[in-house]
């Protein structure tokens, strides 16, 4: 539910803004000069805002497309990300966004055309190479689709450039635009997954794992390429059994042939964000677990991390060739 809508004055007549407003007829928007007058101010409380988030319609003015951190990719030599939105409808306890911003409001950048232009420039500059664009870095790619129309706009663009892959990373089961179009060979629909028992406790407001697997199965049967993102790997009692059951459930319902890539990522937080994240959510079981400082990140001990990574990789090898395994850790 959207608490309030803010619109930057400069874009109040933008057709995408007008079309979004039609979906929220009962809200009287407040017009602002720039999104930063509302978003991410000092002394804001992410947790309270998360209960009552507002939507801020804005336009991005620079840095539409950025290089991903090192060690973040799914097989191509060049990797970029772009964020048409800041923040997410879901409320996952391990999400770095709660430490990145002090505000939980959704900022939606409506100038898709400017993103498109820069994406095309990058593709054209790297025309002899394979390149991946990640769209779900600062938000969920699909969760806000009914309002944003992001996928509907961008997938037809990527369709024209077979040397460029786009990854839609999501937990959403609202994938209507994908159901209503022909699969695009260079689009990877990547779902974040973890054992049901853990997701129930930490993936607040997100669809259940069972629903996600069913959606993957439907998309797969249509021919969409699927990415499986077991990221973060979460430790706890019986974790080996929980992850074994998860993998079994996933591969029971999904044809291995449609798997484009599998990534495993450890639980990790940038050191400077963790303090803020735990101060906002001190009652979190996950954040109260024994986590240690390793370099610039807060994570499980090296021993636990290695054991989880190697155990899960070992299991996944039974279901899928190792050539599909990638790292999307991203160095902080």
């Amino acid at each position, binding site marked *: 539910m959207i*608490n*309030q809508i*803010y619109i930057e004055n400069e874009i109040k007549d933008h057709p995408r803004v007008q079309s979004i407003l039609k979906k929220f007829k009962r809200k*009287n928007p*407040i017009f*602002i*000069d720039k999104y930063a*007058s*509302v978003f991410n*101010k*000092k*002394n*804001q*409380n992410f*947790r*309270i*805002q998360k*209960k*009552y988030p*507002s939507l801020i319609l804005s336009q991005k003015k620079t840095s539409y497309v950025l290089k991903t951190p090192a060690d973040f990719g799914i097989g191509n030599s060049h990797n970029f990300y772009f964020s048409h939105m800041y923040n997410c409808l879901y409320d996952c306890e391990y999400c770095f966004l709660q430490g990145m911003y002090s505000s939980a409001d959704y900022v939606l950048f409506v100038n898709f055309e400017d993103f498109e232009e820069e994406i095309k420039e990058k593709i054209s500059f790297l025309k002899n190479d394979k390149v991946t664009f990640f769209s779900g870095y600062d938000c969920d790619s699909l969760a806000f689709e009914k309002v944003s129309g992001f996928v509907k706009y961008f997938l037809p663009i990527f369709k024209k450039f077979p040397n460029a892959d786009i990854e839609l990373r999501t937990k959403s089961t609202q994938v209507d635009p994908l159901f209503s179009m022909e699969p695009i060979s260079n689009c990877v629909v990547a779902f974040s997954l973890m*054992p049901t*028992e*853990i997701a129930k*406790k930490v993936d607040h407001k997100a669809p259940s794992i069972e629903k996600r697997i069913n959606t993957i199965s439907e998309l797969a049967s249509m021919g969409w390429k699927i990415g499986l993102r077991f990221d973060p790997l*979460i*430790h*706890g*009692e*019986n974790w080996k059994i*929980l992850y074994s059951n998860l993998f079994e459930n996933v591969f029971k319902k999904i044809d291995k042939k449609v798997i484009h890539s599998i990534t495993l990522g450890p639980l990790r937080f940038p050191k400077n964000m963790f303090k803020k994240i735990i*101060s*906002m959510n*001190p*009652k*979190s*079981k*996950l954040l*109260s*677990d*024994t986590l240690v400082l390793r370099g610039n990140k807060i994570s499980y001990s090296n021993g636990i991390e290695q054991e989880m990574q190697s155990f899960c990789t070992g299991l996944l090898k039974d279901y899928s060739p190792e050539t599909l395994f990638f790292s999307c850790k991203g160095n902080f």
Partner: protein
Amino acid sequence: MSNGCICWVIALPSEAKTLIEEFKMFPIQGDTLFPVYKNKNEDEWLVITGVGQLNAASGASYLYSLCPQARTSFWINFGIAGAGKKVGNIGDIFFINELRNYDHDKVHYPFILPQLKIKNAMLKTYDKPQNNYQNSFLFDMESWGFYNIVQRKITRELITIIKIISDNSIETISSISKDFVKKLVKEKVEYLVSLRDIGNSLSRIEMERKKEPYIFFDLTKNIHFTFSQREQLKKFLIRWDVHFPKRPLFPEIKDLKDAKSILGYLESSLDSHVLKWE
């Protein structure tokens, strides 16, 4: 769960009177810089600041220094305001969603309170009484001073401004009297009660988040902990509450006599605990 706490910042006694009666507040005894009221449970506080931005800011700061729960309280600036054309009628109540100052271009957008059934409006704060009713916004003499100081001290979601129209182009500022103001407030008191309920629920969220573990005070009273040990203890105790909500700590550490052994016990117990997800 803790109760919330409300801090009212109000310019005039006539604006405050109904609230003082309704919420059963009484004046704090002794010499105070501003008249300050509180209720028996000390979870409702009110300061009468006098007119103007400087008074509003000073009064709010003063109340902040007196109220033990100030950092997690819900702060309300309430009072009367003038209204430009077409904003509303005398007696209409408004929640301020955009706050400006006549003197510069800076702007604050107060957090929009959920489920508050009050109309929203923009308000501009002036240094002198206004009788120009041609603009399409509300105007007063305190709100900017109040908001600007309080937002430096506490989270913005716990600050709000509510105004009742006292004068407009039809009934101008010259017709305002003490009794008239009291009547305006009395007629809208039910809205202020519902605002207070919302404020209390938000304040409770913040109090829970910032609550010190129950045993912290007892431990640090009897045993010496250095500053960094106190910080470490606080973190361990919070984690203990999360992981072992039904396991009282005190019996387990009652024989430990110094900070180092208590911290050591907590650390090893917590580190050996494996989370149960099922």
